[in-house]
């Protein structure tokens, strides 16, 4: 087979060129000043700068991370309490009627604290270290308490809706009529 010797490779298509040479980031016009407070550091640029800086920082000690973790766990423990005012307002606003929205809201009101209570250990597992172990029980107790407060709000709401069997009329069906010991037979007609 006769081969025609390749004299010259064909020029690469335009798209290959485009691919190989991406448009350069626009060079900033040095004559225009940045707005005040703007620090010119693109994310990538900053990252590169940061990464270049981090090795310079010395790693935190275990005591420091423990303190941080404890701080973080406290934040988590208080979180349910932060939602309380909002929930309380919502519940107050939704009224005591039995409607689909109020029922769903009450359901959520119960679901969240109960879920939280069930997963208490999981929530705080990532903060659990040798150092924090001894102090974490306080955090957990606080968390449980806060969830209980949220639950109490739910119970208050359910009571407001009249769903708690706390009154005499709720147990009326189980009460029985008194039986007379004597019987009268009537012979009038």
């Amino acid at each position, binding site marked *: 087979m006769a081969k025609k010797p390749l004299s010259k490779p064909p020029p690469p298509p335009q798209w290959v060129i485009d691919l190989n040479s991406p448009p350069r980031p626009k060079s900033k016009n040095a004559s225009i000043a940045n707005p005040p407070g703007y620090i010119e550091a693109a994310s990538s640029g900053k990252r590169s700068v940061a990464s270049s800086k981090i090795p310079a920082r010395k790693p935190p000690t275990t005591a420091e991370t423990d303190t941080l973790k404890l701080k973080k766990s406290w934040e988590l423990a208080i979180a349910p309490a932060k939602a309380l005012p909002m929930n309380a307002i919502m519940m107050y606003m939704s009224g005591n009627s039995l409607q689909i929205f109020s029922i769903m809201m009450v359901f959520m009101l119960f679901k969240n604290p109960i879920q939280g209570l069930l997963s208490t250990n999981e929530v705080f597992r990532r903060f659990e270290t040798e150092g924090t172990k001894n102090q974490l029980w306080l955090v957990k107790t606080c968390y449980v308490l806060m969830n209980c407060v949220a639950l109490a709000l739910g119970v208050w709401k359910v009571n407001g809706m009249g769903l708690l069997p706390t009154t005499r009329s709720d147990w009326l069906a189980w009460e029985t009529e008194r039986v007379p010991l004597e*019987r009268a037979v009537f012979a*009038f007609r």
Partner: protein
Amino acid sequence: MRLSVPILLPSVAVLFASIGHAIFADEAYQTDYHLPLLGLPQAHTTLFHRPSAASKASLLYTLSDRLVLGAVNPKDGAVVWRQQLANQAENHTASGLLKAPERGNTLISAFNGKIQTWDATDGRLVWEWQSRGRIRSIETAASSEDEKDILALSHEGADAIIRRLAAGTGYLLWEYVNASGDTPYSLVSYKDSVFYLSLHSALLKGFKIKVTELDASTGKQIGQPTVLNSDSEVTSEDSILHVGANSDVPIIIWTDKGLKTLKINIIGTKQITTVNIPSSQGDLAEEIVVHASRSSTALPHFLIHYKAANSHWGEVYHIDAAKSTAKKAFDLPLLGGKGAFSASSQGPDVFFTRHTAFENILVSSAAPNVLNSWNVRPKSHGGMLDPQDITHAASEVIARAGSTYAVRSALALPSGDWELIRNGNPSWVRPEGLAGMTAAAFVGIAKQEDLAEELAAESMRNPLAAYLHRVTRHVRDLQYLPDWSGALPKRLLGSLIGDKASTYDQSLRRDGFGFHKIVLIATDRGRLAALDAGNQGKVIWNIQAVSLKAEETWDVLDIEVEEGTALIRAKGGEFLRVVVNTGTILQYQPGAMIKSLKTFVSVLDSSGKKVLIPVNDNGCLGDLPKADFGHGTIVVTEGEDSVVRGWGLTKGTNPKLIWRFMPASGERVESVNVRPSYDPVASIGKALGDRNVLYKYLNPNLLLITAIGVEISAATFYILDGTSGSVIYSVTHPGGDTRQPIVSTMSENWFAYSLYSESTAVTQDVTQIDGQKLKGYQLVVSELYESLYPNDRGSLGSSTNFSTVYPTAADEDDSLASPHVISQTYLIPGPISSMSVTSTLQGITTRSLLCVVPDLHALISISKAFLDPRRPVGRDPSASEMEEGLFRYSPLLGFEPKWILSHKRDVISISNVITSPSLLESTSLVFAFGNLDLFGSRVSPIGAFDILGNGFSKLQLVLTVVALGVGTTLVTPFVRRKQIDGTWKA
């Protein structure tokens, strides 16, 4: 309950909208039934008559034994109009008189001292006139042509007074007083004179018939009275058989006591024709009736009807006016059985129609040959084998061209049925014998195939035998398959299209809703009948349970329902046991076997066996049968001496008197009420708006005694405990009218009564006007609670039983544990003559008060929700009261037309209402009965919440489902393709 505020508020509105309706328009005439009865038609007051000179068709008029004047359409037997001449409470011994003037448009009736004329077409009262004495006879004056004046003979003290009253107005034209002291008997008007017939008592015995002639236009006596007979012939008024008033020639026919001879006189002459009464083929006549045409233009022919013990025959007489004699024309031969004759005329022709149990024979008065005869057995005989006699008949004969005749006869049968026969064809039957009901009871229909029994039998056997038994049972069941599958398309179609009438189960079988029940009724004439309440009140059977003498009535006290049978207890210890489905009498014990015995009461002994205990008239118990009644069984009786007694049953034969209740001096016990025997209570307390509980005072032994002080015009209501006899509560209403109906009822923990008295309902400042206290009809509703305070069960606390005879130590201080009573009074527009309460299966549905309002001719249903005594007075209800469904009290309670259960029906003379639960909790069966009418319906006090209404279209539902199914199937391929295309395109 608080949770229900938002649900309740709109639902209360819906509730009140729905409880307002006693019956829906599409259910009217479907679920209810009504028999408008007249009472037994009387022989001399039953006639065919044209309501006005212009009308072509005639109506059938009757004045019945219960003094109801009615017009019946001869075509279908429907009542055109009815009027009651006497109040049912009025004691009526005399029968009424009825005259229908020829070619007039009014009817004239007289009863006691009252003459009334009625529009014959619509039954409206034209005028009425009251005399001081009893009206003995009424007659129309023959003189004037268009409007005929009325002549009336009344017996006032010793005087007989004849008056002429103007036809259109009832004004008195003249008055003739006859003070001879004779007993007035009758009046006959002939041409320009009026003949007054009186009975002059003879020296020794018997009467003389005295005829006095008066001038019809002035009322002056003409000549001297003539005396017609010798002393011994007329022994009483019954001896006079006929006074021919309106025939062309006035005649009087009388007989002697032994029915030996018959004397005929043309009034105004002295000549008397004497006829020896024949004894045809050896049968002696026991009763003689004369039939003559009422028409003045008809020929003077009359028929004498002889009734023997078991046969009858007749003789036709012609009057020769010129010679003033009557001559026998021909005989109508003797026939077996008791038959009836009736006379009618057309123009001058007089026809006599003879009715026997087997045939109708039409003869002309002129000749003895039979014009036409039909073999006919009246329809009301039904399946009865033996033919019935015919008591009396009225007929109308129309002669057509070619000597054909149209004959309509209304036959009254001894059973009380009233039947019309047209040209030998039975046309309709009216069960008039059912009037005068004294007692009724609902009876559930027994299961026909007892599946439970069969299944029990299977479980007892070994597996193989049980299997064979089941297979044979299923094979046996296959015989019903063709019928069932044959009826299936019709049933399906009927239920789809909503044709309720065709889906009614005509057979006597239980239905799924429990609407199919038998109503057993007993009448004062000794008849017993069963109606099908699920099938428009159709009569299932109707028997003469006891045979009574003419004036006797059957006083049924009570109907007790047992398994498949019913025990009917009447006065004097008489009782009767019948099979409910067929009416077969199983056992009969005549009354008055033991002197002063009133009735028996059945008491269960400690082993659960029924023991009958005799109760005497004076309220004492008879000797007890040997039985062990256990501890604390007390029989409460009401004696004739207005004393209510409680008797303790012990082991011996002597009952011990435990307590006695006597009302205050000057009072007598009017009635005693107890809670209904079936009175289930769904909840023992009432949940308040704040979710506390007011406990109901529930005591099955309560008695509500109504005592009336006649002289002080006061009514007192006592609530008694039936075992200890202690008065728990009492209230007195002074200044009433004790002749007005005072009725009461009790159920669950409440009682209600209605009376006419001084009003306490309106506020204090308006109760008196000029020193006069306001009076009116009132309805009072009271509820009993265990305590005034919510969540409190009174002194008994949480104990599960109680004894009022031996109170526990806990209530020594307050030994009666008296309930807290809340009452509210409403002013109502009219009297209530009977009150009862609906009854449902579980007692969950709010009860409804069923009241008979005689002024409205209606039965109304007032929901208890309207009558809650806790309704706030003088202020709007608070939110929690609104939750309970309470609304502001207003003292006036109008009977809303929506409450009327009998809607457009004219229900008259009902005095009792009974109720029975159906299998649907929402619905109660109702049956009202009394002296005349019977009415049955269904009532849903708070709406029929557990059954689809007639408005629900099953067809629409099925069509929607089918359309959806078809649509889905059609669209499926397109959707699938689109889905696939979409996947590819993605």
